[in-house]
């Protein structure tokens, strides 16, 4: 089917850019069409917390003028939505939490600023697990997001609203953040493409912090090509984030043509153990076979300590979260308890009322592992195991260019299915967390359907290997059409 036959909402960013350039439609028409689609599906999916229709239409008009005068940016007039933990000046930024349900950011996050400067139009802010703590979008104060493939199911999380909106063909692209898998896992569960760049590749300025040594911003799209278009704009050094890396940003779109011939793809045997659903395993193996047929070489690699990545993460991430979330105190912004008796009561009740159950558990886990007498046994121990896990990856990347395997152990699960046991929920991220601990880039691409539900293939590369990951994902998407499959109710 040619692009001209596609409804406007079915097009990718690249397809929309062509349509805009050819004058098939204006940015205003595009924006109006997608705003209508947001409204139409909000009751079913709950993918949005805020819709910024008025600003979007203003931006669209300016984009149309810029195009006419020939000075639009590289993303001029292209629609995008932001996960609601990117600060947006003058617009609500809630992080899916009651404690920020009235917070209007005084400034834009670097990611928001860069995409806007390139001409992208923000249509709204997407729903998410509270402070990005969750793998199912069920911890949001604003209610769970549903999966467009089956609305009884979760879209994954924490960037669940972003993933659902992209999968349902409501918007072509959304930003997300990934601390332990929060871009890649929902991308896998919704049949979308999601990339988490190298730690430090994209500025975290204005991205509300959860676990600062693990958090990284990325995108969820419907193709690797679209992800490349956005990442090229988002990546780069920013003096306002002291962990942002001053490292040249390649032209990711130009690099997409690189063949997989001779690419050495590492396969980790432990990733195909009994923990992985057999249908998911079959899809992932098919995908690896396609890449092998296209000239890639499959090589067994060993990550001896990868089995400890989830417990390591659940010491390090809560420790950092307990520190980061101490800023929410009912004094400078956010929810404040009524009639506090004293300062302690103000802090404790504002936080007790403002945070949901999972956030409280993580703040308390973090407080515990950092408390007197426990720091060495938990936090220091975890940072040592983290070093071992990182060293395993460094060793593996001496022999392979990327490591590929499943993104998630199962396809999408039912809303409510895993809420009783935090550990069951945490194990959703068993294949994704390693990349965060080691600061590595990772991408998830759709690689099959199991009982009608999407399966994701994850590829992880060495630091700053985004170009290779995007090229490999793009080449795979030239060989297969899994990324073009849309959920039935959202064609």
């Amino acid at each position, binding site marked *: 089917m040619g692009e001209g036959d596609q409804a406007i909402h079915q097009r990718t960013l690249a397809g929309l850019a062509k349509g805009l350039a050819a004058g098939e439609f204006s940015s205003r028409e595009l924006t109006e069409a997608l705003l209508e689609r947001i409204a139409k599906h909000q009751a079913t999916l709950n993918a949005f917390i805020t819709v910024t229709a008025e600003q979007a239409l203003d931006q669209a008009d300016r984009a149309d003028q810029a195009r006419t005068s020939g000075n639009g940016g590289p993303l001029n007039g292209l629609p995008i939505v932001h996960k609601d933990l990117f600060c947006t000046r003058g617009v609500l930024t809630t992080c899916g939490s009651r404690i920020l349900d009235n*917070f*209007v950011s*005084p400034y834009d996050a670097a990611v928001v600023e860069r995409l806007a400067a390139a001409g992208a139009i923000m249509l709204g802010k997407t729903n998410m697990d509270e402070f990005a703590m969750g793998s199912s979008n069920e911890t949001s104060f604003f209610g769970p997001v549903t999966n467009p493939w089956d609305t009884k199911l979760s879209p994954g999380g924490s960037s669940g609203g972003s993933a659902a909106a992209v999968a349902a063909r409501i918007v072509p692209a959304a930003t997300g953040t990934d601390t332990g898998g929060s871009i890649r896992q929902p991308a896998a569960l919704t049949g979308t493409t999601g990339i988490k760049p*190298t*730690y*430090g590749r994209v500025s975290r300025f204005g991205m509300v912090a959860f676990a600062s040594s693990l958090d990284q911003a990325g995108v969820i799209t419907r193709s690797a090509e679209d992800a490349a278009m956005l990442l090229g704009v988002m990546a780069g050094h920013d*003096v306002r984030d*002291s962990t942002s*890396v001053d490292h040249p940003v390649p032209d990711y779109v130009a690099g997409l043509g690189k063949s997989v011939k001779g690419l050495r793809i590492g396969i980790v045997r432990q990733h195909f153990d009994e923990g992985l659903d057999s249908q998911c395993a079959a899809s992932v193996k098919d995908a690896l076979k396609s890449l092998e047929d296209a000239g890639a070489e499959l090589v067994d690699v060993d990550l001896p*300590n990868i089995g*400890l990545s989830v*417990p*390591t993460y*659940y010491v390090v991430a809560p420790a950092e979260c307990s520190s980061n979330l101490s800023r929410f*105190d009912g*004094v*400078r912004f*956010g929810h404040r308890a009524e009639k*506090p*008796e*004293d*300062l*302690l*009561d*103000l802090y*404790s*009740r504002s*936080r*007790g*009322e403002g945070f949901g*159950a999972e956030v*409280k*558990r993580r*703040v*308390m*886990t*973090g*407080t*515990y*592992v950092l*408390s*007197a*007498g*426990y720091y060495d*046994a*938990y936090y220091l*121990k*975890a*940072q*040592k*195991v*983290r*070093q*071992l896990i*990182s060293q395993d990856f460094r060793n593996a990347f001496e022999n392979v260019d990327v490591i590929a395997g499943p993104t998630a152990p199962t396809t999408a699960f039912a809303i409510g299915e895993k809420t009783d046991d*935090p*550990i069951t929920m*945490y194990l959703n991220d068993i294949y994704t967390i390693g990349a965060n601990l080691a*600061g590595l880039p990772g991408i998830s691409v759709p690689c099959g359907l199991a009982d009608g539900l999407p399966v994701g293939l994850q590829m992880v590369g060495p*630091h700053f290997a985004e170009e290779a990951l995007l090229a490999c994902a793009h080449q795979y998407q030239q060989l297969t059409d899994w990324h073009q499959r849309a959920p039935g109710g959202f064609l």
Partner: protein
Amino acid sequence: MDTTLHKAAGIILPPDLLHLSHRQESPENPVSLTKEQVQHIATLARLQLEDRESDDVVEKLSRIVDFVDQLQAAPTDDVLPMAHPLNMSQRLRADEVSETDQRDFVQQNAPSTEGGYYLVPKVIE
């Protein structure tokens, strides 16, 4: 831990809770946290727990702590703790003013202010 610091912050803790009692650490013997320990952690974290939440928090926090306990078995002698994913050190910058004064704008988000100050309940009598 210094008890006077706690007093200064308006919290008086019973002496036996100043240090969390040491747990037995072995996978065969998962030791759950007690309600008192959890309450102490909540106090340190400045989180008020409702009575109805309390049992659930004790149970789930215990499961999390038991789960992460498997790290204890990992051999980490001579391993340096990881400080940064890219082994980078923090950059320094010149100590120059780079921001404009936006106090009034920023304080629009504050629940209670007066004369440019944030208002909190009286701390010193």
